[in-house]
């Protein structure tokens, strides 16, 4: 029996609140989209290296690691087509605006009751992308060139986001 596109975990959720993660991934699973779950940035990176997910949904304020956006940038280098979505309940509007500025992030979404519904199109698209052949070299070359320009800004934004979290804690 062949594996359908929707059965390959094209989405990785990096979230330490297990109850919330279970609800969110169940909402995707009901529609046939399987997600991997990691609870820390480090586990997330390890899972990404293994799975090469097309969509990474990550909570910015996770314990155990300080890599933050730079880790997402590293993931992007591995799978340039991967889409990165930051979700958060803990960032200020100003920090949210800042995070949205970087090309690294596809979308920044707040944790609201409609989050699952808002993420579903991205999950569907990621599952579809996972089945498509891609000219990785061309894509990677082009994207990495963009990313090199983006890195200094990523580091600055990362620092600002971290300070925002610390201030609010």
């Amino acid at each position, binding site marked *: 029996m062949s594996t359908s596109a929707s059965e390959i975990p094209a989405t990785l959720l990096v979230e330490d609140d297990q109850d*919330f993660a279970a*609800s*969110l991934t169940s*909402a995707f699973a009901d529609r046939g989209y399987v997600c991997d779950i990691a609870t820390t940035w480090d586990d997330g990176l390890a899972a990404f290296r293994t799975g090469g997910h097309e969509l990474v949904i990550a909570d910015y304020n996770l314990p155990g690691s300080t890599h933050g956006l730079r880790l997402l940038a590293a993931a992007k280098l591995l799978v340039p087509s991967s889409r990165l979505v930051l979700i958060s309940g803990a960032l200020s509007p100003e920090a949210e605006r800042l995070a949205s500025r970087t090309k690294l992030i596809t979308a920044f979404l707040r*944790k609201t009751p*409609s989050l699952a*519904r808002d993420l579903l199109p991205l999950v569907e698209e990621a599952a579809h992308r996972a089945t498509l052949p891609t000219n990785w070299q061309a894509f990677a070359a082009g994207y990495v060139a963009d990313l090199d320009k983006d890195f200094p800004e990523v580091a600055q934004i990362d620092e600002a986001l971290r300070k925002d979290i610390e201030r609010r804690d």
Partner: protein
Amino acid sequence: MKKTLRFKASARLQSILSRELVSDPNVALLEFVKNAYDAAATQVNITFELHDNPSQSVIWIADNGEGMDLPSFERDWMRPGFSKKADYVPKPGRRVPVGEKGLGRLAAGRLGDGLEVYTRRSRREPWLHVKFKWSAFDDMNRNLDEIPVPIDDEHTPTVTSGSHGTIVRISGLRLNWSARVPGRKVAGRSDTRIGRLRQDLEVLLLPLRSADQAFDISLEHNSSIPDDEAGPVVAPEIEALGYQFLFEVKTTGLRDVSFTVVRSKEIADEAEVRQRTKDKIKLASILNDIKPSSVGPFRGSFFYAPKSASRLRELRAPIGVQVYRDNVRVDPYGEEGDDWLGARAKKAARQGYAAIQPNALYGAVEISKKDNPNLVAMANREGLIENDAYDAFITICRAMFAEFAKIVYVEIVEPNWTPIDEKRQDLAKGQQEFAFMLARTAVHAVRQPVAGAGAELDRLQHVIDSSAVKQTVRSQLQELHDRTLAHLNRIEDIVARMLDVFDFEPEPTEFALSSFVEEVVKKASDTSAKSHKIDVHVHPNTQAMVRLPRDLIEHALVELIENAIHADRGARRKGKVDVAVSSEQDRATITVTDDGCGIPDDIVKHLFTRTQSTRGHIGFGLILTRQMLRLIRGDVELAATGDAGTSFSIMLPINEHQRQRDTSYAPGRG
């Protein structure tokens, strides 16, 4: 019948006087030391031979004073109440005797049942040996003179004091002197009986005395308590660590009391020294109706060592202001528990504002029999007898203490003390910040389960949408889903509002009010107003600058604008909101007016007190808005409401320095 009666003293009187006259055993023992002092002794040795059973312990008190022969012993010792010292005429340079009541020796009964006295005037004489047993005097049916007191010259004391003097042996002790004092520890006092005795001996005499009045005391014992020192009793050195306040009621005229303030180098460097160093105060202003002549001249010195309590403990400085009469201490002034100057009472009454902390106050007030004949100690050694002289003496001393406290307060306390109110404010601020942080953390945490519940509702929607569900069940499930989602959205709305508050920048910034309102209105117009087909217009009529927390004002204004946008307009699909900005004197006003149907009376009544809203759900925006504005001395009020619409006004303070000349804009703008 006509006859003459005479008192006959019951033997029991002796017992009562000896055991009950003096309450403190230390005071009883000190009477013998004072007797030695009065007998012109230069040395007195106190020795405790302690046993586990107190009744077998013995106290020896040996002095090298004048001693007594049989006639003087019979005259001075065997007549309670008689004292040759009562009529003593002071001679210059000679020690003034302390005892005058002829009762001190009776205090021996307080210490033990047995008393033996050895006394002689010179080496050439044998020791007179007199033996008392106080329990023999317990018989009230016998008279005092019916109880025999044996005397001989055949015994020699086992301790010596020199060629002459008096040696007292007290046996059958009533107290266990080798024990610790029961009860709670008293600050500054030893917790052993012998330790306390040593402390009392150290301050028995004024520290500064001339060489010809030398009087050395030693205290020996075989107590097993390691804390208990043995050997010479040395008066602690009175080191002036902080303030000295020296006052004197002079001999001539007795019209005023002069005082001098001396500050240590540390005090002079640290304190805001702006009080007088020398001054006089009229006695009449202190004493009111009390005659100054009732008291006689005397002097005193108060020492106050702020922040030096530990140094005072090292020096074993006697805390408290003692009273000395002819160089010998008058009990109980200055003892722990005695507050004769009112220092502790002042501290208790003012709850932290007291200038002088009692645990760093020490000193002495000196009176004399010659100058203050009416200041007489009570027989029970519990202070001076209360009379006019005593009233004047106490009043003057307390007035001097109050004067001293005033100086210390102005120079030391006032510049450095954090008032209780400020401490309370700091505590309240800390509590507020903690509550704020807790609330912010909780609000963030709420978002997780709210988003999770939203995801579960999304799953429910997926089930509802599937063809496997029957239509009747589908509509019920859909209703369940929709209502639950509505509740979740309200929670999210509340969370978002609260987070807006937490994200406020609390520091005020200066900005032009009209420009600011225009920015806020533009944002609202581009989003909420547009989607509700509401036109929002700004009418800026002031160039006022304000210095306020910008985020807070924006939140308040957005609250009113949103309310105006969502106002009930009945069937009308379009509407408008006007935002006017004006200022006058020290206040700026932003008025937001809608063209809705007005607010029902029952809601108006509780507008700023209940969580209610005309938007169909519970809202607390106006309550929060008012509380926030009042924090910055602003406010919000309902200006008007009716069929033609509703107006709310935000009032903001304009700082004196930011007030600009009010200039109207050209008509047509906005």
